[in-house]
């Protein structure tokens, strides 16, 4: 069988979706860990942020990989969604989806779209100013600017609210996504039950961590 048809098969797409999702999961873990330091120490947070902002490996290798990973994941998500819709041209007059599956599992495209919209806001908030500071304005290195920038962003109650809402949707995305990706890569055995618990814990703890950070800085100014 031709390799090209293997790569475009439904299973290959599932696996690609799972691997890109898991990659983003690992990134989230790193991201929340760094941000959590901002609650305890402005200095540690500044130090970590400066490292992430100026280390060449992070900047020129990991960041592009991350960007590609995000784009790949949501483009593939749209492709799959369109194919799946096409597989049922006539909808049921009555369909009781909640009888056999969770809301989170049936609405990955909705939770995903909210996360995508959030990413837009997030880029506008942090990434564009960063690019502007470093490359457009060519401003000098300032290892202490990160913490004030962070705190400033959470001044607005609207923004803080939007962040928190997005993290709830992220939690729903991960509630299904983490365990779904295990099944997609073919991991379903006697360890799965324990791993599922870990998946659910991750889906709650990581977004909850982001929520705590947002609320902490909002109320602590």
């Amino acid at each position: 069988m031709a390799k090209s048809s293997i790569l475009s098969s439904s299973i290959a797409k599932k696996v690609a979706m799972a691997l890109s999702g898991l990659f983003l999961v690992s990134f989230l873990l790193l991201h929340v860990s760094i941000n959590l330091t901002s609650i305890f120490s402005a200095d540690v947070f500044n130090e970590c942020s400066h490292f992430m902002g100026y280390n060449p490996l992070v900047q020129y290798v990991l960041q592009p990989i991350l960007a590609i990973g995000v784009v790949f994941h949501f483009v593939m998500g749209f492709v799959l969604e369109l194919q799946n819709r096409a597989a049922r041209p006539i909808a049921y007059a009555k369909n009781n989806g909640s009888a056999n599956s969770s809301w989170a599992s049936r609405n990955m495209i909705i939770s995903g779209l909210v996360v995508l919209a959030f990413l837009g806001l997030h880029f506008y908030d942090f990434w564009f100013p960063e690019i502007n500071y470093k490359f457009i304005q060519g401003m000098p290195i300032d290892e202490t600017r990160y913490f004030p920038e962070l705190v400033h962003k959470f001044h607005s109650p609207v923004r803080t609210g939007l962040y928190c809402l997005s993290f709830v949707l992220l939690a729903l995305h991960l509630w299904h996504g983490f365990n779904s990706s295990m099944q997609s890569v073919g991991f379903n055995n006697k360890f799965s039950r324990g791993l599922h618990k870990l998946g659910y814990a991750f889906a709650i703890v990581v977004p909850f961590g982001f929520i705590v950070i947002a609320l902490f800085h909002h109320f602590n100014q």
Partner: protein
Amino acid sequence: MSVAKNININLKVWRQKNAKTKGSMETYKLDNVSTASSFLEMLDQLNEQLVNERKEPIAFDHDCREGICGMCSLYINGRAHGPDTGITTCQLHMRSFKDGDTIYVEPWRSKAFPVIKDLVVDRSSFDRIQQAGGFVSVNTSGRTIDANATPIPKHDADRSFEAAACIGCGACVATCKNGSAMLFVGAKVSQYALLPQGRVEATQRVLNMVRQMDEEGFGNCTNTGACEVECPKGISLENIARMNREYLAASMK
């Protein structure tokens, strides 16, 4: 068990003249349905009423009426094979419904299962997937080896048997929000993949069956797990994971 009684029901049934015409949901009233009758007997009763009214009876699939052939389909009140789990439609009884209920009856909805007439769909896409690899090539010249001559671990034999219980009814596709056939194909791949006799053609089997599945226009699995809940034979999601592993291994070869 409670004593049987008679109930009056309303039905909303998909009517479609043939594969080419557009169909629609039609409403019927049916009185004096015994709660002891099966769902299909209720449809027989409705058809008698329609025939007496000189109307076209409703076409629906059925054969064994004892849960083994997989012919009876029907999406009832928003669920494949109706409200109970672990059963086919022929095993559904009217005691699951109440007097005055409105019951929706629709055909399986999938691009790969086109409606032929009313509630009858064409499931030959499943046959074509089977023909693409759901078999073992054995010499049937009379010199076959006794199957028991090959030792098989009990665990594997049991898993294979469980997968082989799939009756090809299509409920998994019908209930899946993506119209995916992965539970069916996962079961058919697994029943052979677990046995030494099936290993011989394992690589080509999984590649060919998945290719055929994709060509038929089934959707992509997103692991909602709805299929496993609605499957009348309790086929497990493990079979989909096994198929994914088989596929990944086969595509490396």
